[in-house]
């Protein structure tokens, strides 16, 4: 309101109230300050409703029992609405994975696993978000025996690293830990 010059008739800012004006300005400023704090606080509950709710957070971790998975087999589990590939790698696959760092997004295999036998990666192609093939026995696994994305032909190796095609980075490794010999908790 301070930026208009027209003083309306009868406005309180008249010169003969100098002393009062000072007190009113102080009162006005403190009221405005308190009001601004109140308005700011009032906005938070509205914003916070859009954050993940308790029932969503309760599902933010997924526990996986690894015991039924035999060597060379993969399972897909859902974690936070995304597919996670859990693969029990064969000796040959591990050796293959350890031989190289990959080219496009070099990373050592032991940085990508907690136990060499188990590879846990988020099953979403880092190119444009398709789900790569290679989980089921009949699926194409691509040139590097890992996963193959049917959308634009990205091929991942047995460590989930990008080796060929347009995807820029390796399949992401989700945060997880072993809670027992054959159980992991993702998230």
């Amino acid at each position, binding site marked *: 309101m301070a930026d208009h010059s027209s003083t309306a008739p*009868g406005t*309180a800012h*008249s010169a003969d*109230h100098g002393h*009062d004006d000072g*007190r*009113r300005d102080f*009162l*006005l400023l*403190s*009221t405005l300050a*308190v*009001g601004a704090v*109140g308005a700011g606080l009032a906005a938070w509950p509205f914003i916070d409703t859009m954050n993940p709710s*308790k*029932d969503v957070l*309760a*599902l933010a971790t997924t526990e996986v029992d690894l015991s039924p998975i035999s060597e060379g087999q993969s399972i897909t589990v859902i974690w936070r609405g995304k597919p996670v590939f859990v693969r029990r790698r064969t000796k040959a696959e591990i050796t293959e994975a350890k031989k190289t760092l990959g080219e496009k997004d070099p990373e050592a295999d032991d940085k990508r696993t907690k136990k060499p036998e188990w590879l846990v990666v988020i099953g979403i192609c880092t190119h444009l978000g398709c789900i790569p093939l290679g989980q089921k026995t009949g699926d194409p696994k691509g040139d590097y025996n890992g996963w193959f994305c049917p959308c634009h032909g990205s091929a991942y190796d047995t460590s989930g690293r990008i080796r060929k095609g347009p995807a820029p980075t390796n399949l992401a490794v989700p945060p997880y830990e072993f809670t027992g010999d054959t159980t992991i908790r993702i998230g």
Partner: protein
Amino acid sequence: MKTQVLAAILGGLLAFGAIQAASAAEGQAAPKLKWTTDGVTGHFDRAELKRGWTVYKQVCASCHSAHQLYYRNLTDIGFSEAEAKAIAAGDSVPAGPNEAGETHVDGSPIMRPALLSDKLAAPYANANAARAANNGALPPDLSLITKARKGGADYIHALLTGYKEPPAGFQLQQGMAFNAYFPGFQIAMPAPLVEGAISFDDGTNATVAQMARDVSAFLIWSAEPELEDRKRMGIKILAFLLVFTALLYALKRKIWADVH
């Protein structure tokens, strides 16, 4: 004139309040009790809630579901996460289709141990199963019961302790029990609480009065788990508003001082 108006408005509000009280149907009015959740500073007594949970779990839950509660909610009434997990693992819930796509094996559903993220296991698969097991009467879900009945926890407490012999000449239908607080005085639920039928972990004596109180308090929590947060926040916000409104009033007086 202002007083007339205020009187009229207040009268109106009171009238509406009276409507709520007056249309409480045929049952006897439940006596008003004191709860820790009452009033502006209302709060939960965690020990009471835990005892109430024991009563719910060991007595009520055999017929009554508490559909809105999750096992994870138990950490809000003083159980540790490990304890809540153990309680959950002790119950089983339908597991969903197995690899062969079956949900039932030999006619019974495939079950798995419950997780913290599961809702409390229900005693019956559906309302028809519940009726079939209870002489055609449907045990109501208890999670919102104190909000869904006039009198709230007072009513629940009165009902649980209100079983009596029917007065002479009262025609009780078969399989029904007499309860002065139940609308129509005949209730399909037999007196559920029996002295000493359960034992509390904290050593409290499990009298009928104690159990009724504890489980009613638990049901207040289950219906309004936000109650404590709500009242604490309310005090702060109203205090803030009183100060702010007082400031506004002072400013209003100042600004209007020169209007003649």
